[in-house]
């Protein structure tokens, strides 16, 4: 937005005092000549401006690009990291690129697209109902979304299995579930479980942006004769960055999945792209070059996703949040509308949270539920056993501390990433950042963590006295790298909406950059920042693959403890630990929103609130 020429002496004074580079990026030459000695300072300042960006990129290189690049390099040069004898070879590709991998890639692509579309559609609908209608029960959904985020996919799969298996609960109740079993134990089941896991992210990304969208656009549609459907279409297109964020992350998460597909489609002969990768990593000797070659093919899927995203968003502006944004009016649903909405929300609640909750109950609260063994009695034995156990308290506190630190640092970095990604007109650096962030998600956690070992366990760095591997610091950095893509994407929708004119107006009226940011930008993104912090905290608390490979000796994150308990057939104890960890995280979520309500200035809380 161009500034108007000064109309008075006072206006001109304001212009001179302003750091012009902040407004235009280039100081006019006549101005520099007049200022004389300040000319040099301006140039120094211009150089200084470059440095923070360099620092930012150094961090991105250290925590994302270097580990990913080193892991991908192993496919070509196994000798580089002592994973083979050849400095350059393509043999890993010839081993990896089999018919099975190619069909797996196609299956992964189908699953990725399906889950991304379904998650985004459900996430959008949920955000619309919660934020834009007076549907009953809408207030519980923020809590439900975080509960979903915390629910491990194994509990979702376990719940479905306990219901549908031969002699399972539905069978005991006299219902023949064999037809449902045949449908669910395959690609459809995988899509259902991964969609449920994708909904929270889609909801958080889209709802944060939806709060920043005033009602004036819907009014405009109605003025021009459009109906409710047209309004929704306009809203979806205006929320483009947030919707595409949801699509991209859920897609990347889905193509990197292995556990859900391996469990649910165990005997369905439905292979995904990651099958070959895990087969190479899980067998011994571990074949990292083949895993790396498969990772290259996953990168192709990421590039495809980014090309589609770039085509959809290219050349459009989404800066809808300005000083004139109008408060949103909540749609008053009819009785029929309320009933239908409530039924849909109820079904979603049962499918998304009820089934895993049932899985948790059957595993941890009822002795031998659904089986021929055990007393089938309710009891809290598993909970009383683990509550007093040092296997729960120490690891839970350790993981909670790491999750808190990770969330705090991630939110700051993610805000920077989101601002860079939201910059209008895709720069090369923005594209690289976008690619790296999505690639980090599309790579399965276990190879991402292996990349960290490659990068930070080099003998050369050790000889310099740098010993990062095996420390909590490296675990924190890896958590940060794992969380950054999702958190950046949650903030991207909101960041894309902020009109620069608000900040410029503040600066024109004499406020410094920091005060302008605090008074203009922070109120607008305070709630999305809180959502991003809580998202990162909850996702990090139970993170598994990175924790398994990078936790320092002698310190055990809670997720590793839970997995070990489950691996040793202690389903009751492991699930009880899981449930308690989830409850502790939900307590933090509740506390976060309570503190926001109590401590945040009233104006911050009004952003996006419907009337």
């Amino acid at each position, binding site marked *: 937005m161009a500034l108007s020429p000064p109309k008075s002496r006072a206006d001109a004074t304001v212009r001179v005092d302003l750091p012009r580079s902040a407004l235009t990026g280039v100081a006019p030459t006549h101005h520099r000549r007049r200022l004389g000695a300040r000319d040099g300072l301006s140039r120094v300042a211009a150089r200084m*401006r470059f440095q923070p960006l360099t620092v930012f990129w150094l961090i991105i290189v250290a925590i994302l690009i270097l580990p990913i690049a080193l892991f991908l390099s192993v496919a070509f040069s196994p000798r580089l990291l002592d994973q083979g004898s050849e400095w350059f070879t393509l043999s890993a590709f010839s081993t990896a690129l089999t018919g099975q991998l190619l069909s797996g890639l196609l299956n992964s692509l189908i699953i990725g697209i399906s889950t991304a579309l379904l998650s985004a559609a459900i996430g959008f609908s949920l955000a619309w109902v919660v934020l834009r209608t007076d549907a009953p029960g809408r207030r519980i959904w923020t809590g439900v979304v975080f509960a979903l985020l915390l629910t491990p996919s194994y509990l979702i799969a376990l719940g479905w299995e306990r219901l549908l298996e031969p002699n399972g609960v539905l069978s005991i109740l006299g219902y023949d579930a064999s037809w449902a079993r045949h449908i669910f134990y395959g690609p459809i089941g995988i899509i259902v479980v991964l969609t449920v896991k994708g909904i929270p992210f889609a909801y958080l990304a889209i709802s944060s942006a939806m709060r920043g969208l005033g009602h004036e656009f819907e009014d405009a549609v109605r003025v021009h004769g459009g109906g409710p459907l047209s309004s929704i279409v306009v809203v979806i297109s205006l929320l483009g960055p947030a919707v595409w964020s949801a699509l991209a992350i859920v897609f990347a998460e889905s193509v990197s999945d292995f556990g859900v597909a*391996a469990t649910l489609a165990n005997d369905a002969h439905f292979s995904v792209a990651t099958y070959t990768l895990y087969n190479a990593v899980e067998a011994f000797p571990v074949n990292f070059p083949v895993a790396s070659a498969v990772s290259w093919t996953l990168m192709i899927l990421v590039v495809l996703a980014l090309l589609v995203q770039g085509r959809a968003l290219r050349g459009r502006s989404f800066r809808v949040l300005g000083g004139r944004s109008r408060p949103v009016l909540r749609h008053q649903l009819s009785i029929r509308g309320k009933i239908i909405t409530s039924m849909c929300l109820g079904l979603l609640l049962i499918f998304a949270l009820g089934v895993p909750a049932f899985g948790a109950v059957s595993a941890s609260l009822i002795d031998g539920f659904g089986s021929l063994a055990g007393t089938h009695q309710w009891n809290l034995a598993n909970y009383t056993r683990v509550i007093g156990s040092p296997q729960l308290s120490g690891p839970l506190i350790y993981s909670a501390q790491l999750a808190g630190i990770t969330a705090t640092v991630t939110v700051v970095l993610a805000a920077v990433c989101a601002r860079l990604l939201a910059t209008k007109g895709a720069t090369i650096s923005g594209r690289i950042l976008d690619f790296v962030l999505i690639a980090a998600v599309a790579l399965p956690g276990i190879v991402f963590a292996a990349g960290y070992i490659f990068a930070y366990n080099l*003998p050369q760095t050790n000889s310099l006295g740098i010993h990062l591997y095996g420390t909590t*610091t490296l675990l924190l950095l890896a958590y*940060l790298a794992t969380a950054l893509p999702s958190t950046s994407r949650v903030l991207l929708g909101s960041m894309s909406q902020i009109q620069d004119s608000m900040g410029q107006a503040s600066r024109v009226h004499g406020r410094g*950059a920091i005060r302008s940011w605090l008074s203009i930008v922070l109120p607008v993104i305070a709630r999305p920042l809180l959502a991003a912090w809580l998202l990162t905290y909850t996702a990090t608390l139970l993170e598994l693959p990175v924790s398994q490979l990078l936790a320092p000796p002698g310190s055990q994150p809670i997720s590793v403890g839970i997995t070990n308990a489950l691996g040793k057939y202690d389903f009751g104890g492991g699930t009880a630990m899981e449930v308690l960890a989830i409850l502790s995280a939900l307590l933090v979520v509740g506390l976060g929103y309570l503190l926001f309500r109590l401590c945040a200035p009233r104006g911050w809380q009004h952003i996006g609130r419907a009337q």
Partner: protein
Amino acid sequence: MTLRSRVITIGGIAVAVTLLAGCSATATAAQSTSASGCVEPLVLYAAEGYDANMGTAFTAKTGIPVQVVDDSTGPLLTKIAAEKNNPQWSMLWADGDTAFASLDQQGQLLDYAPNAQWDTVGKALLPSDNSYAPTGTTVMAALIYNSAATSTVPTSYNDLLGAAYAGKVGMNDPAQSGPTYPFIAGLMNQLGGQTGGVAAGEDYLTKLKANGLQVFPTNGDTLHALETGQIDYGLIQSSAATGETIKVQPTAGYAPKIVYLPKSTLLPSVIGIDKGADATQQAEAKQFVDYALSPEGQQVMQGADTSGDSLFWPVVNGVTALSQLPAFPADYQRIDPVFWGPQQSDVVTWFDTNIK
């Protein structure tokens, strides 16, 4: 400085503060290590239910600190492979000797003959170059069956191909269950031998599949299928099967019992020392191995996880197995890990394609 630059600066500072905090913690840890003189902490990568107890007991006895990385065998081996150019572990302790044979072939294990009185099984399991040591053994597979649902009990693997067992037998998926590949390799070794290769074993498994074999991900899943009546017979690891008989109170509908079909394949718990560790750690690790094979150490192992990994048969004289364990199977075999280890990836892929 623009607003964007300032935001970026703040982000950089935040990360730098975190790094500094972490580095200072690391430095503190390093200082405390060096301050303790010639004693260095041992880093034990382990996937045994008794590993943490053993670390504590060893430290109490010797004063040598042990940092245990307790995880499943898969992630531990992935860590070791990724650390290959700069190993950070002192010892690895896990079930199955195929991975150890492979590590030995790659020159990663220190040869050490422990100060132990091996029994017959122990001697059979000991590698000729002493590159690793068994500390106990389980077998694969135990056939656990629901005696409340069936009175037909097989006496050989061939029996399982009969009509009486159609659709009633389950086993684990070797792609997801660590102990299951040694079982399949054992079948192939028994039926075809190293000269005959995998063909006879593949033929047997194909027939078993034709007779309705069901495949579940891991021991726990196969046990669950047995508990819910999906199968009447499960082929799982002996310690998991014995643990089930200990944990479950027999009822009219479910009463698990175990038989061992000839031949049972030995699946030892194995410990090895990192050849790349420094001399101090190697000396300490040798002490640890000796301790694990002493009656005192074996007692700690047997008391730590009494319904899980403690259910092993000792391989040294003078130590008796826990009373819940049945007599050691008379007809057993040890498969050559050097021969069968490298075939794991091919066999697992074949199984997933043709049997699962």
